[in-house]
């Protein structure tokens, strides 16, 4: 039954993908955008459809009627898309029929299909991604539950960008699996786009190889399946924007300029660091299209597609980049402790040098303090870097790829220093790296070419092994071999704590809130506020130094319960412990829950006490 549900949800994702492609195709027709290759046209249509849909959801947000609004949006998109359905089918059939694959291409295409299928089933597992449980999905739930208003207690909820609108769409249509599937769809489309870029330089087999290498990159399959983060959409939009920029000189059409801008805007609107990739795309476009008219269309498209999260944050806080710009935009609203913690978490407080830039550019940067899949791109871009330098030519595609890749790497190195944020440019870098091997002349490069191909093969084999090891638990739950509850207890951090609080407090009063300090709050079903000062703006240790200040906060926020599990955060433990010792916080339920110790991948758990305390009125 679980497998049927997983396949059903994947079917729903496929239908939504068809809707986006058909909708986007009509939009491209309206804007008189010229045709590219048949696969590129399908991907371009998908990108256009998704970005415009996301902007529609952003507009609907202002009504706070998410379920009705998104339902209406889907119907509207369907009405626009229906006349295009036949054309899309014809395009797909023509692409498949005209493919005429060789034996090696058939094998590669089968491998791509197999990996995409495995990842699709894996993506249908219940949500366990750490950041997703804290804010990617939780912020969407806040909107659905409380309407379109800020939640300062989860400061990361202000990072809710345009790609998150797809998560909101899935959840508002009543399905977490659909939301997860829409995240996964971004990865599949990014692989297709990477193949198109590689195909422009090399025979088709190399394009398929680039797609396979992308799908088997640990960071990418983690992003597509378990992370629950929509960042992989940025990779798709950047790659499509690069294809548009490379096509601009031949076509010189304002439609293409507009959509390039729209995709750049979608990247900027997805995440703050996306602004760096968007600026890199703007630079590449400026290089290729030195006409004021084209630039105006580019800028207009970018603003229209990407301004929404910044406008929202500005209207709520006065700082479009909240909380990072609060020192300049909103001086009277600073929580220094939380700001420092968030900057440390996002890597914004660290500094980098030229060596770091080189390792970032080749996707070989690594922070030993935080080992994990989110840093692991694999060695291909580093190993094949010399071949890229040999292969580079003064063509529009090379210029667009080089400017976007290098400028993004430079920007990320000197602002956040986290290699994960380079994901948007990874498909173009990987496509350039892999296709550069194809361009080596067999006669004078026999040995190096053979070793390069062997390296790519080994990396792919390791990727397959990594995929099977890493995704074994989600595959098991999606296939129904393990129950949802059992899987969540085993794999989701803080799930037992949330379950304990739900069981103890459900039905104790609908408006009274619970103050919790554990990070992963998505599975809480009771009204709550998050209280860790490392990520909660109103919990300022400088202002909450006394028990009285805490009691005032409890009254103001209607907090009736406090959960200690097992200790209070160190920065605020003093006054809370005083309240407990003085009898203002009364223990009412005590128990024990098991949770991970250290990194989740170590799979080591420890049982710790959990206490629910009632605030004495």
């Amino acid at each position, binding site marked *: 039954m679980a497998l049927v549900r997983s396949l059903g949800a994947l079917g729903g994702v496929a239908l939504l993908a068809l809707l986006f492609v058909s909708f986007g195709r009509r939009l491209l027709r309206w804007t008189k955008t010229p045709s590219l290759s048949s696969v590129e046209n399908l991907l371009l249509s998908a990108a256009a459809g998704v970005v415009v849909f996301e902007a529609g959801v952003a507009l609907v947000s202002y009504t706070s009627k998410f379920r009705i609004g998104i339902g209406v949006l889907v119907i509207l998109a369907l009405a626009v898309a229906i006349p295009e359905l036949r054309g899309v089918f014809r395009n797909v059939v023509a692409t498949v029929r005209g493919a005429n694959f060789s034996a090696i291409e058939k094998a590669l295409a089968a491998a791509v299909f197999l990996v995409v299928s495995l990842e699709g089933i894996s993506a249908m597992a219940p949500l366990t991604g750490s950041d997703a449980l804290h804010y990617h999905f939780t912020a969407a739930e806040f909107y659905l539950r409380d309407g379109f208003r800020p939640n300062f207690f989860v400061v990361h909820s202000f990072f809710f960008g345009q790609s998150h609108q797809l998560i909101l769409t899935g959840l508002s249509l009543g399905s977490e699996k659909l939301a997860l599937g829409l995240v996964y769809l971004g990865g599949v489309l990014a692989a297709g786009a990477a193949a198109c870029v590689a195909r422009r330089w090399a025979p088709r087999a190399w394009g398929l190889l680039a797609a396979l290498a992308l799908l088997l990159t640990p960071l990418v399959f983690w992003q597509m399946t378990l992370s629950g983060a929509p960042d992989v959409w940025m990779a798709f939009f950047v790659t499509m924007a690069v294809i548009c920029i490379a096509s601009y000189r031949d076509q010189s059409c304002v439609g293409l300029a507009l959509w390039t801008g729209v995709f750049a805007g979608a990247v900027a609107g997805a995440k703050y660091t996306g602004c760096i990739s968007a600026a890199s795309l703007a630079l590449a476009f400026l290089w290729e299209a030195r006409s004021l008219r084209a630039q105006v269309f580019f800028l207009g498209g970018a603003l229209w597609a990407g301004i929404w999260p910044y406008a929202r944050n500005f209207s709520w806080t006065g700082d479009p980049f909240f909380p990072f710009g609060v020192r300049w935009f909103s001086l009277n609203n600073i929580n220094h402790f939380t700001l420092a913690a968030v900057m440390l978490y996002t890597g914004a407080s660290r500094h980098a040098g030229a060596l770091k830039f080189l390792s970032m550019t080749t996707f070989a940067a690594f922070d030993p303090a935080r080992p994990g899949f989110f840093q692991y791109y694999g060695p291909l871009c580093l190993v094949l870097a010399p071949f890229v330098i040999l292969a580079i030519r003064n063509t529009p595609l090379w210029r667009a790829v080089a400017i976007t890749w290098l400028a993004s790497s430079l920007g990320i190195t000197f602002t956040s220093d986290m290699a994960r944020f380079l994901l948007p440019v990874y498909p173009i870098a990987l496509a350039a790296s892999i296709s550069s091997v194809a361009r080596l002349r067999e006669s004078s490069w026999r*040995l190096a070419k053979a070793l390069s191909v062997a*390296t790519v093969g080994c990396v792919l084999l390791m990727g397959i092994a990594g995929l099977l*090891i890493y995704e074994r638990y989600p595959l098991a739950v999606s296939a129904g071999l393990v129950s949802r509850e059992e899987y969540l207890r085993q794999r989701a951090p803080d799930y037992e704590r949330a379950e304990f609080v739900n069981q103890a407090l459900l039905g104790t009063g609908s408006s009274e809130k619970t103050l919790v300090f554990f990070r992963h709050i998505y599975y809480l079903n009771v009204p709550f506020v998050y209280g860790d000062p490392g990520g909660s703006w109103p919990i300022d240790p400088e202002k909450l130094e006394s028990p009285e200040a805490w009691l005032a906060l409890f009254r103001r926020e209607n907090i009736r319960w406090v959960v200690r599990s097992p200790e209070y955060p160190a920065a605020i433990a003093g006054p809370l412990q005083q309240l407990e010792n003085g009898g203002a916080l009364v223990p009412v339920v005590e128990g024990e829950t098991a949770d991970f110790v250290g990194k989740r991948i170590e799979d*080591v758990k420890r049982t710790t006490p959990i206490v629910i305390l009632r605030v004495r009125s």
Partner: protein
Amino acid sequence: MTDKGSKRAAMVKNSVFCFWIVAAQVWYYARFMPAFDPLLKSVRHRLWP
């Protein structure tokens, strides 16, 4: 360049790039070993809890 000269140049070029391919991978995996530590710990923990 003579045939012999161009062959030698190709061999040197190939050797340099082959060295790079191997050296870069050795460096990369040595650098990323800490990332595999948790996985190894997990396996160890399962075998000898």
